[in-house]
């Protein structure tokens, strides 16, 4: 039977690598002598943490694009909403330590002469509620958006365009001061999380390890989804949507379910990102951000989950290096990379690597006879 195991060889490698990263980065930060080549300096820990959050975001995009063919060019919006929910908690944690020393109101509200906390800020000083909102707000938006889009059978490029419009509209809304989210400055000047100072090296290590754990958990969840019969239906929708309908599947329900789940994963990524970079502002909603995520997935290898993680890490590490050396050229390099991958490596780095692996394997071993082995296995 082709019942896919939850953990195939590739997933075990992914999880083992993530575990290694979760141990090595903190160990090399704490134990390796500063100045040695092995030392991971304090500012690198949150930088790596940021990459890990991007990898989780890429994973969420691969789940819908790679497996169900929904090309969302607006996933940055769900990421940003998760980030804002976390940012609101962190703002409330500042308490009277703000510039204006107001015990309740964040600085930007005092500056705007607001007298009391808007209703939607209530409860955000309590982490469990904020954490719930990290899931619920992106999830609810995705559900409502998907309800209308999938029911009216909006697909392909039209769907992509309206997801861009969605994130663009949210960006404009969050730029407004009267929205109550800090306008174009966003939320920043955070002090601590659950009482741990955000600037402390130990807190940063904690957040890093938590991010890796979230990525591993997200990966396992996605593996579970795609290796189930549900996941097979998703691929069926991707490859032959009307065939799936005539078999009796309600395609729009499947799309809605996976789109909502994916938005929640993106929200978690955003929530872990914000304490590590120390700010969330409306530019996170910029349409270009969402497009960049799709490029990470394409570069790593769409429809593989592991490829999404790989692509996010490689492209973002490249971005950090490139913006250090030739900042003006980063966007050209990214565009060039995308064109290169689309034309020459349509299955991404992971797909290309697999091809090379299989080709070299065939040369070493006698040609496999899949038919015969399959028969023998029964």
């Amino acid at each position, binding site marked *: 039977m082709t019942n896919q195991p939850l953990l195939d060889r590739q997933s075990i490698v992914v999880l083992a690598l993530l575990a290694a990263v979760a141990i090595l980065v903190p160990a090399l930060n704490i134990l390796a002598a500063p100045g040695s080549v092995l030392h991971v300096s304090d500012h690198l820990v949150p930088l790596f943490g940021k990459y890990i959050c991007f990898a989780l975001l890429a994973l969420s995009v691969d789940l819908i694009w790679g497996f169900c063919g929904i090309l969302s060019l607006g996933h940055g919006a769900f990421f940003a909403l998760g980030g804002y929910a976390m940012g609101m908690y962190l703002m409330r944690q500042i308490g009277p330590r703000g510039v204006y020393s107001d015990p309740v109101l964040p600085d930007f509200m005092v500056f705007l002469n607001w007298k009391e906390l808007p209703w939607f800020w209530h409860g955000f000083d309590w982490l469990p509620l904020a954490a719930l909102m990290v899931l619920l707000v992106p999830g609810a938006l995705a559900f409502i958006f998907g309800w209308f889009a999938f029911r009216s059978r909006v697909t392909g490029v039209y769907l992509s365009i309206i997801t861009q419009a969605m994130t663009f509209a949210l960006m404009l809304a969050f730029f407004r001061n009267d929205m109550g989210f800090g306008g174009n400055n966003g939320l920043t000047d955070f002090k601590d999380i659950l009482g741990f100072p955000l600037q402390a090296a130990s807190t940063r290590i904690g957040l890093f390890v938590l991010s890796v754990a979230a990525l591993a958990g997200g990966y396992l969840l996605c593996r579970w989804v795609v290796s189930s*019969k*549900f996941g097979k239906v998703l691929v069926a929708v991707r490859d032959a949507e*009307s065939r799936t309908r005539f078999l009796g599947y309600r395609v729009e329900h499947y799309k809605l379910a996976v789109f909502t789940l994916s938005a929640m994963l993106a929200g978690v990524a955003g929530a872990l990102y914000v304490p590590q970079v120390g700010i969330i502002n409306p530019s996170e909603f910029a349409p270009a951000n969402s497009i960049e995520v799709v490029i990470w997935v394409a570069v790593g290898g769409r429809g593989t989950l592991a490829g999404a993680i790989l692509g996010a890490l490689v492209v973002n590490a490249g971005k950090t290096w490139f913006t250090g050396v030739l900042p003006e050229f980063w966007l050209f390099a990214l565009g060039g990379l995308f064109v290169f991958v689309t034309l020459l490596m349509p299955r991404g780095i992971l797909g290309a690597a697999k091809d090379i692996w299989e080709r070299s394997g065939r040369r070493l071993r006698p040609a496999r006879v899949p038919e015969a082995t399959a028969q023998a296995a029964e």
Partner: protein
Amino acid sequence: MTAPVTPALLYLDNVSVSFDGFRALNALSLAIDHAEMRAIIGPNGAGKTTMMDVITGKTRPNEGIALFEGSHDLTALDEAAIAELGIGRKFQTPTVFEMHSVEDNLLLALKEKRSPFATLLSRRTAQERERVDALLERVRLTSSRHRKAGELSHGQKQWLEIGMLLAQQPKLLLIDEPAAGMTDQETADTADLLRDIARTQSVVVVEHDMTFVRDLGVKVTCLHEGSVLAEGSLDAVSANERVVEVYLGR
């Protein structure tokens, strides 16, 4: 449900469909009985595929009645609901899930709960396995069960798609041009398979290949410009003057 208004399994009456003023179906009426096999012939553009679109909920007719089992109004249901009622459809070009294994294609088609929640938690049972085994045997794909459906030959894909229809256990199978692109032997085998299916289920077959239609040996309906031109045995229909005119006049 109200009392059935017709004993027929499928009942189309006065169905019309127009696309931007062009009448693809023009007051089409047709009735298919339980466990009946019917062959539909007619020149290209006669409206055969459009008729299937109407029956399966893909296209809404501008007017007319489409009833299944005498009581289900097909014009008010969507594709999934119609499939659930027991109408399966094979497309004109074979459409299978190319990236899935042959076995998984059948597994997805098996008559089981279709909701996202049910499929997320479903575990493959021994009984499902047996059903898949039997289907693989019936469409002669047992030795290809682990291959990707995309790697199959054209004829094998046609058969896989028929196997997927059978997996749904429909009461009515709509089969659009099954012999297209098949070798003579495959065509003959397909006719055998369909005759076998028609012993228990109703089958509507659209086909151009006259040898194939003769092999089926069933009542024939000839469509032309969206309505029924002639109906009866193949010999009677091919002797019909207007049918000859339509086919030769092309």
